[in-house]
C-alpha cells in the first residue's frame, strides 16, 4: 500500500478541442516525482479537462504525455491506472450499498480461494482509514457515511491501487476544518513517501500550506508555473482571473437591527435544544465539523425535516414549518449545500428554476404568463449578473457560480426575510465567490436575516457578525464578532477531537 515512489510526468502541447470549444490549448507542464503540484484556475480554465486527459478519460486532440521517459499520445483509463495515475474526482465512484472496506477493494477483492476474505479487507481498510486520520468502521455501508467520510473512502480506494501520481480535484471542498487538517497530514505523508500529487484547488491557504509548485491555467491556456515561495496569493489570483481583484472578503458596515428570528428548544433531525436569536441585517454564521448538525438544523428551520419540539418565531409570529412550501410562505429560504441535487432542477431553464416556488402566482385563469416570468428572470439575471445567453438556458450548462446565482434569484423572488445559506460558495471560483459575498452583504444591508453555514473557516470568519458553533447536534456557544478567531471556533467545534 505504500507509494512505490512517485513518477515524473511531462505534458507537451496538450490540446483538447470539442466542437466549437478549445478546452485546452497547447498546455505543457512538468510534474516532478515527489512534489505536490497545485493547479489553479477559475471554473472553465481547463483543470477538469486536463485531469481527464491525464486519467485517460478523454483523448487529447494533440500533444503527448511522457511518463517516466515513456511517451504516450493517447492514454486509456486502464493504461493510466497501470502507470499508477489515480484521480480523486469531486463526484465519488463509490457504491453506496457496499461497505467501506468493499469499496476500497472494489474490483480487486481479496479472496481466500473462491471466498471473499472479509477479515483481511476490513483490517487493511481500517488501517488505511487510520492512516488518513479518520476512524471509519470498515463494515459500515458507504451510503450511511457523510460526504466527508465518503471522500476518505475514495482516497483510500485510490491508495489501495498503488497510485504513484495522485490527482486530487478540490479534495477539501466537502471537508470540515478538522478533516482538512487531517487530509493535509495525509498529503504530507504521501509526499514524504515520494508520491507525486497534483492538487487542484480554489483555496489559496491550502495551496500555500501544501504545494511545492503551482501552475496557473486560464481559459484553457497554460499561464505559468511558480515555486510556492516565489509567489503570493494576490499574484496567483491575478494570474487566474487575468485582472486585478481584491483578495478576501468585502467590508461591510454591519448594523444589525431588531431581533427578527427567535429559535428556542429546537429538537429533531439529530439536533437538540437549539436556542438563538438573529437580527435583521445580521449575518449569523454556523460553524462546526461535518455531522455537527448544522445542515440538519437548516432542514428543520426550512421544514424539510419534521420537528420534534421547539419554537421558531419571526417578528413574534410562529413560523414552525411543516414543509418547505410552508417555510417559503413564512418568508424563509434555504440555498442548500448540494445545489445540483437539492437546489436546482438542472434540466430546467434559468427562468423555470427561478419561478418554480411561485409559478402558480404567474397563472392567469390557469395559464402561466410566460412573459411575466421572463420579465422576472431578466430582472434577476441583470441584478445578480448571471452570465448566460438567455433565461432559456438550461441550468445544468452553467458554471457553479452562475448556478448558485440562479438559486439565489429563485429565493430572492420569494421575498424572504430569512435566508439560510448552506455552504454558499462550495465549488465556486474566486471571481464568482466575491460576487456571492457581495450579494449576501447587500441582502443583509437590506435588513434581511442571513444564516450562513460554512466549513470554510476563512469564509465563516470573514462574513459572519456572530458565529454559533455546533457539535454533535448540540449548540456549543455563540461567539460575538470580537471573540471570533479560528482558534475560538475550533475550540468549540472540536472539543475532545484531534485537530
Amino acid at each position, binding site marked *: 500500500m505504500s507509494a512505490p515512489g512517485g513518477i515524473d510526468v511531462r505534458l507537451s502541447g496538450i490540446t483538447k478541442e470539442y466542437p466549437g470549444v478549445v478546452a485546452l490549448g497547447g498546455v505543457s507542464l512538468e510534474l516532478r516525482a515527489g512534489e505536490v503540484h497545485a493547479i489553479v484556475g477559475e471554473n472553465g480554465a481547463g483543470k477538469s479537462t486536463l485531469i481527464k486527459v491525464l486519467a485517460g478519460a478523454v483523448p487529447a486532440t494533440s500533444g503527448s504525455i511522457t511518463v517516466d521517459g515513456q511517451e504516450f499520445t493517447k492514454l486509456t483509463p486502464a493504461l493510466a491506472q497501470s502507470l499508477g495515475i489515480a484521480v480523486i474526482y469531486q463526484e465519488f465512484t463509490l457504491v453506496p450499498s457496499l461497505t467501506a472496506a468493499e469499496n476500497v477493494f472494489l474490483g480487486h477483492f481479496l479472496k481466500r480461494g473462491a471466498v471473499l476474505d472479509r477479515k483481511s479487507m476490513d483490517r487493511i481498510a481500517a488501517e488505511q482509514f487510520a492512516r488518513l486520520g479518520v476512524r471509519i468502521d470498515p463494515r459500515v455501508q458507504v451510503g450511511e457515511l457523510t460526504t466527508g467520510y465518503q471522500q476518505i473512502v475514495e482516497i483510500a480506494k485510490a491508495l489501495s491501487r498503488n497510485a504513484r501520481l495522485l490527482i486530487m480535484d478540490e479534495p477539501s471542498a466537502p471537508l470540515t476544518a478538522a478533516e482538512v487538517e487531517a487530509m493535509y497530514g495525509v498529503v504530507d505523508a504521501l509526499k514524504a513517501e515520494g508520491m507525486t500529487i497534483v492538487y487542484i484547488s480554489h483555496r489559496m491557504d491550502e495551496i500555500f500550506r501544501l504545494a511545492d509548485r503551482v501552475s496557473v491555467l486560464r481559459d484553457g491556456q497554460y499561464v505559468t508555473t511558480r515555486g510556492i515561495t516565489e509567489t503570493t496569493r494576490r499574484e496567483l489570483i491575478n494570474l487566474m482571473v487575468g485582472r486585478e481583484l481584491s483578495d478576501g472578503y468585502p467590508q461591510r458596515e454591519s448594523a444589525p437591527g431588531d431581533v427578527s428570528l427567535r429559535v428556542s428548544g429546537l429538537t429533531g433531525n439529530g439536533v437538540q435544544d437549539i436556542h438563538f436569536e438573529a437580527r435583521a441585517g445580521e449575518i449569523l454564521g454556523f460553524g462546526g465539523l461535518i455531522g455537527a448538525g448544522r445542515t440538519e438544523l437548516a432542514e428543520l428551520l*426550512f421544514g*424539510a425535516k419534521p420537528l420534534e419540539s421547539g419554537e421558531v418565531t419571526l417578528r413574534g409570529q410562529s413560523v414552525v414549518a411543516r*414543509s*418547505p*412550501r410552508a*417555510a*417559503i410562505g413564512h418568508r424563509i429560504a*434555504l440555498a*442548500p449545500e448540494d445545489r*445540483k*441535487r*437539492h*437546489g*436546482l*432542477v*438542472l*434540466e*430546467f431553464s434559468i427562468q*423555470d*428554476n427561478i419561478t*418554480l*416556488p*411561485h*409559478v*402558480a402566482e*404567474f*397563472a392567469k385563469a*390557469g*395559464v*402561466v404568463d410566460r412573459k411575466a416570468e421572463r420579465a422576472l428572470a431578466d430582472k434577476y439575471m441583470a441584478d445578480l449578473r448571471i452570465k448566460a445567453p438567455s433565461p*432559456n*438556458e*438550461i441550468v445544468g450548462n452553467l458554471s457553479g457560480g452562475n448556478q448558485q446565482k440562479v438559486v439565489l434569484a*429563485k429565493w430572492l423572488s*420569494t421575498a424572504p426575510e430569512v435566508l439560510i445559506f448552506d455552504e454558499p460558495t462550495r465549488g465556486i471560483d474566486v471571481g464568482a465567490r466575491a460576487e456571492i459575498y457581495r450579494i449576501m452583504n447587500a441582502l443583509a444591508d437590506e435588513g434581511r436575516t442571513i444564516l450562513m453555514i460554512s466549513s470554510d473557516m476563512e469564509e465563516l470568519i470573514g462574513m459572519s457578525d456572530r458565529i454559533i458553533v455546533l457539535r454533535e447536534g448540540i449548540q456549543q456557544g455563540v461567539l460575538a464578532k470580537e471573540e471570533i478567531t479560528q482558534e475560538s471556533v475550533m475550540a468549540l467545534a472540536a472539543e475532545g477531537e484531534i485537530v
Partner: protein
Amino acid sequence: MKSMLMGRMKDLGILLVLVVLVIAFSILSPNFLDPSNIFNITRQIATLGIVAVGFSFVLITGGIDLSVGYQISVNVVVTGMLMSQLGVPWYLAVILSLVLGVLIGTINGLIVTFTGVAPLIVTLSMMMILNGISYLVSKGLPVFGFPREFSFLGQGAVAGIPVSLLVLIVVWAIGLFVLNKTPLGRYFYAIGNNVEAARLSGVPTRATLITVYALCGLFTAIGAILLLSRLNSAQSATGAGFEFSVLTACVLGGISVMGGRGSLFGAFVGVLIVGVLDNGLVLLNVSEYVQLVIKGVILLTAVIYDATSKNSAGRRKQIGGVSIFRQGAKAAA
C-alpha cells in the same frame, strides 16, 4: 435551445417511422387506406390516445401506472352492469364511471405518495387486485344490453366525424393545456427531473403526485367509456394488456420512463404508430401470437433507445437510477 431542437428532431424521426408504416401497409393491404378503415382506426385509437394523456403525465413525473388496463376492465364491467342490470340512466352511469376512475387513481396516488413504495410495484399490485375485482363483479360473464343512446359515444358521428375522435381531440387539447400552460404541468416536469429539488423549492410534491394518478384514472375512465360504447359489451378481459400498448405508444413518442422528459406531441405520434400497427397487422392476417412478439420487440426497442440515448445515460448517472423504481420514497420523505 439545443436540446429543444434535438427533441424536435426526435419527434420528426418518429414521425418518419409512422409515414413508413402507413406507406408499407397501404402497399401490402389494398384496404388499408379505405375511408372506412381510416374511420375504424380513429375509433380504435380513441381509447389508447385518451389513456395515453394521463399515462404520459404519470411518466413525466417519473412514475408509471401499470394498472390502467384492468382499470379499464373494472370500469367497463361496472359501468355496463349499472346500465344493463341496475337500469341506471346512461349519463349517470358515465358520471359514476368517471368518479370510479378518479377514485382508483387517487388510491394509487395515495399509496405511492405516502408509503414510498415504487410506483411500478404499487400499480402492478393494483393491476392484480383490479383484475380480480373485475371477475368478482362480472362473475366472469360478459355484460351487454346497453341503451341505444349510449352506443352513440363510441360508434356515432357528428357531421361525419366520429364522436370518439371528437372526444379524443378535446382530451388532447386539455392534456396539452395542462402540461404546457399550467403550474401543474410545470410541477410534473420538475418532479420527474428532480423530486427533491422540487420539494425544496416549495412544489407541493405530494398533492401533485396524488393528482397525477387521479388524472390518469380519470382519463382511463373516459377511454373505458368510449371502448364500452364501441364494443357494446364488457368483460373482465377487455382491458387486459392495454397498459403495454399505452406504454409502448408513450415511450415510442419520446416520453422517458425515467421521468421529466417528453411531449404530448410525441406521445400522439406514438399512439398513431401503435394504432396503425394494430390495424395493419390484423388486415394482413398476422396471427395474434406473432403480433404479441412484434409489439414486445417494439416496446423493448423503444425502452432501450430511451435508456441509451445520450441524454438519458447522463441523467441516469446524475440521479442515480431509474426513477420509477425509487421515486415515491423521496416524495414521501
